[in-house]
């Protein structure tokens, strides 16, 4: 294989790798962040303090859902290490999913 062909191949590979990386990031910042934010909202009802009126734990996560989503979305878009973003958002979502499962089980 000539040097120019090898260079073209590696450039193509790099482009494909970049495209795959963008797709993985879109998957994280799109559906996965949305599911993660929904789990944090639902799970938040279990660990947030209820406050004087005994309603803060129910109302605050719903009212603040856009903020939860936005924080996770921008983190997913801007973290340079994509796998770290997957781990962190995945852990947050799984933690809340586990809390919900334990609560519903009991």
């Amino acid at each position: 294989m000539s040097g120019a062909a090898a260079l073209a191949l590696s450039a193509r590979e790099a482009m494909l790798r970049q495209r795959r990386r963008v797709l993985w990031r879109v998957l994280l910042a799109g559906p996965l962040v949305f599911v993660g934010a929904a789990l944090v909202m639902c799970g938040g009802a279990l660990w947030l303090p209820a406050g004087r009126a005994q309603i803060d734990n129910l109302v605050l996560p719903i009212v603040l859902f856009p903020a939860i989503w936005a924080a996770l979305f921008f983190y997913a878009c801007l973290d340079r290490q994509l796998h770290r973003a997957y781990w962190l958002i995945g852990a947050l979502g799984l933690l809340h999913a586990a809390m919900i499962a334990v609560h519903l089980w009991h």
Partner: protein
Amino acid sequence: MIRLSQDRTKTLLAIHGWSAVSLGLLLYAVILTGVASVFEKEISDWSSPLETNIVDPFPPGTDAMLRGLAATVDPQFHEELFFYPRAGDRLYAFFHKHELDEDGKPRERGVAAEFDPRTLQLLDRRSGTDEEVAAGERASALSQFMVDLHVRLHLPNPWGLLLTGVLGLAMLVAAVTGFVIHRHLIRELFTLRRRGDKLLGARDVHVIAGTWNLPFAFILAFTGSYFSFGSAFGFPAVAMVAFGGDQDAMFSTLVGNPPAEDASPAALANLDAMIADVRARSGAELGFVQVEHWGRADALVTMFMKYRDGKLLGPSYVYGGSDGGFRYAKPSLGRVPSSGSALFELMAPLHFGNFAGVFSKTVWFALGFASAYVTITGLLLWTQRRQAQRAWLHLARATHWVGYGLPLALTLAAYGYFPVRAGGGEVQPAMMTAFLACAALAALIAWRTPLQQSRRYLLGATGLALLGLPVLRLFCGGISWSGAWIQGLQPVLALDLAFACGGLLCLLSLRRSNLSRSTTLAATPP
């Protein structure tokens, strides 16, 4: 100035552009109908006024009027009653019970009625589920058409709400990224290069309008996505986790009125006396009344007040239904003030802009209009830069179609409403037919004629349609201008004038763009 690495700025710029390009047209539709919905009450008062201005929509005699209605309603619907003023300050009352639909979602079923507060006469009566009752609506149908388009794009629930929720999030992203990528914020608030090339000037206008509008766009997007997602899945999902799916139990907890069940029969105390008491006690006007368990010993009457202009929050007042005695004042949620309730109560005035009467509504209208302008000019700039590519030309045509066709289609929905209402027909299908037919015609114009020409046709038609609206209203039996003046029906006069001015502005902007085009052509060397 906000400092970011080149890499991150590039990412944010891409997010800003692509979020707007992928959802911009739908977002524009939601914002534009939201702008109209700011004046929802005024539009319904304009389209269906009673013959005179109503000074008090809850006059003495309201009690007898509602008792008369209750006597004709199946007692199963006495579970709950709402009553509040609607189009033209007609007093709307809905006796209903709560039930689950075929999919297990909660809904209301009962009997709705509308009364004339001057004569206490029944004007209209409908029965069925809440959706069926709303579908038979006539007096508020025109403003409701705009609101439904804004809230759920006329799609069935929960899909419409979920879609508008996603659009709210897209707007939130555009606002946050706009704030970060326009790094020279202060300078960009005032930079307009009129003598540069046209595209540069257009970009400057887009940036100026967008930059001034950033805080408002953020508020609107945040509160809008909360409203959409909250009702579509937020409350049901939290109810599922915290109350095993029992939404009624969750709402009882949130509202904070203890459910001390006592189903023994007891006549409801006099509502007129309670209304007089709450007015004296709160110093505010009454806005909305809820009666739980009409005719039972555990009946509760909750009065929601309209506080004076400029006051964002205030308590509601709860009375014992069987003795009519004042029980307690409470926030919207919970029995005592809390951060959750305060935040919840702030969402509505911040989204609707109704906290300082017509003044704040006008400001919200103007800022909302600027948001719609930023959305559509952003899309036009994006497509203008790429119009050599065939795929982007289609987006340019779609942008012209929605950008100029939607205001026309919304105006023509009123042309479906007035004649059919005057003829006694079904107004909802008439409005939808007029809207869709106009949208189809606008699509034909946008795809069959050059872009500049399609803009001229659609903007010109919108101008003429707006100018014709007051005339159409008069021809379809609406009150005359002198009659409206004498009877103090300000919304009729104000909106007739506003539509005429809007129509003239469309035609003038058309003339201006024609003049600038001919000047450019004359200045261009052969």
